[in-house]
């Protein structure tokens, strides 16, 4: 069965303090790995799709990378507005999307 494990469970950063979130996965034939951002009381907001090992995607202060076993979401010089829960999910070629339990990020001034 497909599995997604995210770490850490929670992360507190000061504004400007860069860090990385980890997503380890096992999947029977990867169709896509997804990163979503979820704010309290809202639905998951799509950030990135990755497919090939070595692939990288960037958006503002976020950069997502992919290997055959894990993905990292790097946050460079975060701001308080980056505070949210970041969810990782894997989509196999056949079957359903499987989510990790997320990393709750808090960025303080």
């Amino acid at each position: 069965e497909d599995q997604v494990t995210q770490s850490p469970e929670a992360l507190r950063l000061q504004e400007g303090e860069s860090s990385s979130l980890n997503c380890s996965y096992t999947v029977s034939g990867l169709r896509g790995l997804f990163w979503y951002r979820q704010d309290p009381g809202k639905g998951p907001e799509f950030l990135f799709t990755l497919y090939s090992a070595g692939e990288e995607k960037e958006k503002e202060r976020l950069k997502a990378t992919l290997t055959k076993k894990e993905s990292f979401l790097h946050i460079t010089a975060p701001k308080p507005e980056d505070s949210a829960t970041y969810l990782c999910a894997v989509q196999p070629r056949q079957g359903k999307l499987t989510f990790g339990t997320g990393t709750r990020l808090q960025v303080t001034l």
Partner: protein
Amino acid sequence: DTAVSQTPKYLVTQMGNDKSIKCEQNLGHDTMYWYKQDSKKFLKIMFSYNNKELIINETVPNRFSPKSPDKAHLNLHINSLELGDSAVYFCASTSLFGDPRGTQYFGPGTRLLVL
């Protein structure tokens, strides 16, 4: 402008009641989903419809019945509500054959509280 919309946003009801949640997407997608997010924020798929046909049906009590009148709509009817049904329910959609990665887009959620 909203891509995936759900109604109602909040639903508070008594145990034993029957309720429905509605979802609509204007993205032109062919596949829609219902997810349940529990108190620990874990998202788990319940159902999926492709062109009005049920394609994923996870281990969900028979009290939950999805209905898709057309490609753009997916409703969820819940009979005999129980305390454990309290959760946030999300609708999502994708273009299963148009998007090689199958990126799913989520609605804002329906917060269900059963008293």
